[in-house]
């Protein structure tokens, strides 16, 4: 009993530890991204503005919030006398259309008709990383984290049980 009890408690302890490790692992993979994403809320607006400033176009692709934050942060003279609001709004629409086209394509099985991007753009987008991950809604990220943790802990528990059963 004591041995059995001791074995069960060891199993529970290992399962808890493995779950915590799994959570830490998943958090290590996804968590910093989301944390940085939150912290980067203003800087991504600045990236949109910098992108517009160099040639009057927004060449990169950003999460919608970045475009909106960029427009909101425009000084009055820029808002009134330049085409920045129009240019950034147009870029946001284009980005959203591209996203919805890709989403529709993925459900129909058609290849995504993503906007062709130049290598410069690709570099820019990758430089913004992990914006593609960071662009995921927080709720979806939470589901992924919990599912990942449960999967890892389940697998760990399964092997532990098999190991315990194999022990003579």
């Amino acid at each position: 009993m004591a041995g059995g009890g001791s074995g069960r408690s060891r199993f529970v302890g290992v399962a808890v530890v493995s779950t915590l490790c799994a959570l830490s692992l998943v958090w290590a993979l996804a968590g910093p991204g989301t944390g940085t994403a939150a912290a980067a809320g203003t800087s991504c607006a600045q990236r949109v503005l910098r992108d517009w400033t160099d040639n009057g176009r927004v060449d990169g692709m950003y999460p919608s919030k970045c475009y909106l934050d960029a427009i909101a942060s425009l000084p009055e003279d820029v808002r009134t006398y330049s085409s920045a609001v129009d240019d950034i709004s147009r870029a946001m629409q284009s980005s959203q259309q591209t996203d919805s086209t890709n989403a529709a394509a993925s459900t129909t099985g058609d290849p995504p008709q993503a906007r062709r991007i130049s290598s410069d753009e690709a570099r820019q987008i990758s430089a913004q990383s992990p914006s593609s991950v960071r662009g995921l809604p927080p709720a979806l990220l939470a589901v992924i984290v919990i599912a990942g943790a449960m999967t890892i802990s389940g697998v760990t528990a399964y092997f532990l049980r098999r190991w315990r059963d194999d022990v003579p």
Partner: protein
Amino acid sequence: MRWRAWIAALVALGAMSAFPGASSAQAASSVQYGIEDDAWLQHGPGTLSSRIAELERLHVDIVRYTLHWDRIARRRPADARDPDDRAYRWRTSDTVLNALHKAGTSVVVTLVGTPSWANGGAPPNWAPNSASTFASFASAAAARYPWIEDWTIWNEPNLPAWLRPTTAGIYVSRLLNPGYAAIHTRIPDALVGGGMTSPRGGAGGVSPVAWIRAMGKAKAHLDAYAHHPYPSRPQLDSPWGPACKRCSTITMADLGRLLNEVQRAFGSKRIWLTEYGYQTNPPDQLLGVSPATQAQYVASAARRVYLAPRVDMLIYYLVQDDAEPTGWQSGLVTAEGLPKPAFTAFRLPLTEAGRTGDRVHLWGQVRAGSGQRPYRLRVLVAGRWSWLGPTRLTDARGFFAATVRATHGSFVQLWSPRDGAYSLELHV
């Protein structure tokens, strides 16, 4: 280095042989080049006299100055048409305008800003409730400054920041037409400019194209249409392009659209460009161009309006950058008072008009002095400057067009012996 001297002499000789192609400016333009910077004039460094002397060093033809109705008439005047009514406070404008008059500088005045007693307690950007109150103020201002020939009514009324309700009908009926009639009654020879439009409508505003058309339908009275052709994308927009074919905005690159729309709405009215400029980076990181590009555009815009028909005025906005980083930074000198390259480009513009092989077509103006003015061009070869032909004369207004021989990547420079000044080195 003797060989350098030989090369320089040969190049100069070759260029001189090309000089028969040089000629005076092609057309007699009536355009005046001016400046607007009320804050600098009133509160800038030094004394008012020294600031006006600075304008003389810049060789400005005309200065734009704003009369704020809401500041001059904080209280309702008993007799609003009488400039000597006790309610009027002309001291600030008297000081500046009389000093400019004494210096012989032409002025174009802008009337703007509704006092709260005239619009039911609203802010100055709200239109007056009746047309007669503004007419009376315009009459008083014209009586106060009868020597001023050029007047403009309001500032950028197509933007809600300057006029509410933002409609051309209100603008014409309560401001422009009453002001036009009142000023012409006092000064029959005066010219009154209407419109004063911003280059774009922006949030809550009206595009200049729609505004011009609506003003035409509202039967606007004006002697000239005034507009502010700031660039939409300074990073890309030179004074010459790219023009936006399907836009309702009007930048300097879209000058043709302004001419066409004004012609269609009002007939062959004159065009006044009463505000224009390029901000620089530093300090403006969003809208600023480099100081060298600003200088290049100052000269290039001068040529643009010189060649445009019916354009009589180009007013550059700001002598000095705003001290606040968030302010406007299109000055010819920095906030610290250091001249930018545009300072030299403004007083002695030189720009490349085109190239055919080794032959470079140059355009410029010697603004110092009056009548035909002497000028000379030189080219930098192997580290030495060589004169390109003899001293020549501009046309009666100081303009010249010349063709010189210079290889790609050369630097040429304009010399004005009358005021002992060189232009910027122009990379051709």
